[in-house]
């Protein structure tokens, strides 16, 4: 640990101002997340007001069943799921970019996205063919469960492929991830070909992502998994900082590089797998959030990881507010919102900071 401290200390003189700035940004993000959360509970297609309901509860009056369902069974689990999924995707992106030392890396690269997609497609297309009793028991959980195992299995497979004699090759993993992604895409294609009209619609909606299916059950299943994975990331921060110097120098600084890779990959697979399973394919967050924060506060992972979680959560909650109100009473898939609003904004930031961009 003493040597790992050295890795942190080496960065400190360069980043003295950045430290203070990163802490200020962290406080600001906590405030933003709080504000967005309250706003989100008060916003929706129906005119149900959070304050009116809280006022009634405070005065000890009864609130209507419909109000209760909207606030506690629709908006609250949706808020929780948005925060979880946003944080999971953003932090996974930050960890992957640090691990691969590649600005393009995101959770999709280790096969989680394609694997989860394949799992979901299997469940949607082949789920109907399951024996009646089995399909009935699994019911609405079939798709998320299949997506999670699809993502997890692909990641573990990729990890085994790229590890020989106890050493994981990041290059093999990067390229293998692309190959496995293409393979999963092809298998998905076969199933898409078999799918009927209604299933195709379901697939399209799944691929665009949505928090509309948020339920307490999903929050309670995916929540602990994501929380556990996110709780592990602060321990990776110093190691990821050292790794920015290269694998050799990081090892010389006393970082257990292989162990750190193992933890990173397990963390990302668990967090992203759970996030994708409950919300479908929400792109973009994993790439944009960490890069945005790097531009503001620099590449120090001690702040980057925490700030990514906060910003990712706030961003997804805000995007979901737009998704569910802009064409109410219908709603947009959230992936459309994150990409149409985030894409141009990110390009603008990039163009303004062309010379500063660095990992």
């Amino acid at each position, binding site marked *: 640990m003493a040597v790992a401290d050295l890795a942190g200390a080496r960065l400190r003189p360069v980043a003295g101002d950045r430290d203070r700035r990163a802490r200020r940004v962290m406080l600001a993000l906590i405030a933003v997340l709080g504000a967005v959360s309250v706003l989100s509970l008060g916003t*929706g*297609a*129906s*005119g149900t007001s959070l304050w009116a309901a809280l006022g009634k509860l405070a005065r000890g009056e009864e609130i209507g*069943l*419909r109000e*209760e*369902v*909207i606030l*506690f*069974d*629709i*908006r609250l*689990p949706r808020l929780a799921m948005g925060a979880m999924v946003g944080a999971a995707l953003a932090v996974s992106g930050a960890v992957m970019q640090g691990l691969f030392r590649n600005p393009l890396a995101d959770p999709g690269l280790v096969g989680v996205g394609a694997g989860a997609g394949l799992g979901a497609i299997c469940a949607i297309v082949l789920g109907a063919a399951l024996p009646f009793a089995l399909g009935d028991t699994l*019911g*609405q959980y079939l798709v998320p469960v299949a997506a999670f195992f699809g993502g997890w299995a692909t990641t573990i497979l990729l990890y085994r492929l790229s590890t020989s004699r106890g050493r994981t090759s990041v290059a093999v993993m990067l390229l293998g991830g692309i190959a496995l992604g293409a393979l999963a895409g092809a298998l998905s294609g076969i199933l898409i*070909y078999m799918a*009927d*009209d*209604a299933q195709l*619609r*379901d697939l399209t*909606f799944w691929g665009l992502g*949505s928090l*509309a*299916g*948020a*339920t*307490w*059950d*999903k929050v*309670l299943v995916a929540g602990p998994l994501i929380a556990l994975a996110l709780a592990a990331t602060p321990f990776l921060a110093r190691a990821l900082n050292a790794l920015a110097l290269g694998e050799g120098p990081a090892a010389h600084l006393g970082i257990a590089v292989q162990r750190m890779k193992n933890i990173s990959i397990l963390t990302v697979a668990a967090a992203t797998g759970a996030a994708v399973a409950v919300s479908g394919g929400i792109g973009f967050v994993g790439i944009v959030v960490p890069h945005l924060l790097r531009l503001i506060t620099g590449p120090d992972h001690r702040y980057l990881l925490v700030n990514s979680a906060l910003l990712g959560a706030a961003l997804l909650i805000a995007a979901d507010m737009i998704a*569910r109100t802009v*064409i*109410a*009473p*219908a*709603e947009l898939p959230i992936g459309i919102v994150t990409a149409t609003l985030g894409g141009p904004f990110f390009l603008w930031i990039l163009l303004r900071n062309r010379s500063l961009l660095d990992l």
Partner: protein
Amino acid sequence: MATGSDLSIPFVLTRLLHGLAAALAFLAGAPVAAEPAQRVLSLGGAVTEIVHALGQGERLIARDTTSSYPSAVEVLPDVGYFRALSPEGVLSVDPDLILATEGSGPPETMAVLRAADIPLVMIPEGHDMSAIRAKITVIADALGVPDAGAELAAQVDAALVRAIAAGRSDTPPRVLFILSMQGGRIMAAGSGTAAEGIITLAGGVNAMEGFEGYTQVSDEAILMADPDVILMMERSGDHAADDAQIAAHPVLGRTRAAGAGAIVRQPGLLLLGFGPRTPEAVEALNDAFRKARS
């Protein structure tokens, strides 16, 4: 609080008792709702059509995206595609009865709607004569107008029987239903589809066999099937293909249908909805098939 985690034993027991009571009432044929619903949300094009045909159109307060007929419903709020509903969106139109076509979802949304205690009636889906009757009966009962339902069902049945009789022939035409034709690739209807259902009712035979649902078919398969009639949905945008495009298509242009100019277009909801307008659709197809034979 009616959260999913709140599964105390008394709660579960009351729910079970409620369910049991509702089931008994249903089996006994007793009306479940004492007060007739006045704010009805209709999910599914054919469901909306039936509500209107029953003369209950003014009770509708919202619809889904697939409900486009009659044109009066287009001014109603649209809660989105019926398989991808948002729970709060549905609650925001404040319905006191939801008529949902089979397949409405996702299941999470339906669960929330049940938790909010909104009467939810599932309307069975099907592609034959008895299915239309079943839809009308279920909807009329849910709206509390069983007499109007029986009348409409009898009327539609009679019209359909007439239309079917008129379409009977010794040489049933072989009909190819094209769902879409993008970039020259043809998505055709196989067995078990609504398209096959309406073709059969109109006295035709589905030219494509050996697969289920709608799928992309090879040029050779179409050449082998050599349909007498090509049937398509009438709609704007890139799905529709005009006659010139079909004549210019390397395979479709060589079919008997293209040679005789037997290319039929009908509105999608009329053709595939299996609602009160199905006799009308069958008649339209009868005419087209007759022309194709002569």
